[in-house]
């Protein structure tokens, strides 16, 4: 049983939460222009890293709010909890730099391909298929 620190309610049992899958998967900018393959990649293809994973959780029987979590899929250590819509922190759990170009790229310990998610420009190149802006 995980003890998950809800940002609103504090630590609660895992059974109070529901899992929302991989975080930072943006909706394609022009979904109607995607090929079936690209659309299926957006819908169904997710990372499955051995190590740090950025994922979404909702405190269903508590405050009913969503948040993001960095969790180690091997040790189950929770590395960071951060609000929806904010960039992924580095895997040590330190908050990401608010802006800048290269500061988020040093995330070398993860196997994921999550690109840094800058607020306001939520399409990440790693998860949006190339055809999204064709």
């Amino acid at each position, binding site marked *: 049983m995980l003890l998950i620190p809800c940002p*609103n*309610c*504090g630590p*609660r*049992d895992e*059974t*109070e939460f529901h899992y929302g899958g991989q975080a930072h998967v943006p909706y394609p900018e022009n979904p109607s222009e995607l090929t079936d393959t690209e659309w299926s990649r957006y819908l169904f293809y997710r990372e499955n890293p051995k190590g740090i994973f950025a994922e979404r959780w909702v405190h*269903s*029987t*508590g*405050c*009913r*709010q969503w948040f993001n979590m960095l969790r180690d899929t091997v040790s189950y250590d929770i590395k960071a909890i951060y609000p929806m819509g904010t960039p992924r922190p580095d895997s040590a759990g330190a908050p990401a730099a608010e802006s800048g170009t290269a500061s988020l790229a040093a995330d070398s310990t993860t196997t994921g391909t999550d690109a840094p998610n800058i607020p306001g420009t939520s399409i990440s190149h790693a998860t949006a298929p190339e055809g999204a802006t064709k």
Partner: protein
Amino acid sequence: MAETAASPTSAKTNAEKNLAARVSPARQLAEEFAAGSLAGTVEISEVPFLTMVGLRTLAGSAAAERLAGVTGGLPAGSGAVAGSGDVSVLWLGPAEFLVVAPTEAHESLGGDLIPALRDALGSDAGQVVDLSANRTTFELTGPRARAVLEKGCSLDLHPRVFKAGTAFSTEIANIPAILWKTGDESFRIFPRASFAEFLGRWLLDAMREYASPEVP
């Protein structure tokens, strides 16, 4: 609940008839609650038909200020309970609250709480929803009440952490419920109506061991 009243007088009569015919979600357990209660140790009862109103409003907004004016305040964070007089407001989320008031506060009995909240919200973003039929209320009291709850609730219920006058939305016996500590040895539990029988029987079972003399 819809009534097609022929005249105002017959409408009133029908309303009274309907209220008398109401069956609370744990009515069928009333006798077992009485039999399972252990005076001076742990006692359980259903407090039926409390008025409950779901509020959704953004803290700090003008609408929130107006709603707080009606209820006597809105709670600021997890666990907090605000209100004044016999109206209490429980914190459910950053923008979600549950107003709990006596039965007579309900519109159907001439109470003006819900219309006042509706007027306070006006056309602003938010919600005022009558949820009185959504949940029922169990009252669990006595020196063993905490021990009973600890069998099925993973919150830290020790008095140094869980103070009287706080409430949390959590799980009890693996079902979602709101737990409100109303006094040092008294709790109100709000299960949804469909979970009332299950939780009522679960609590009765959890209370049973205290009927026997304590084994040293």
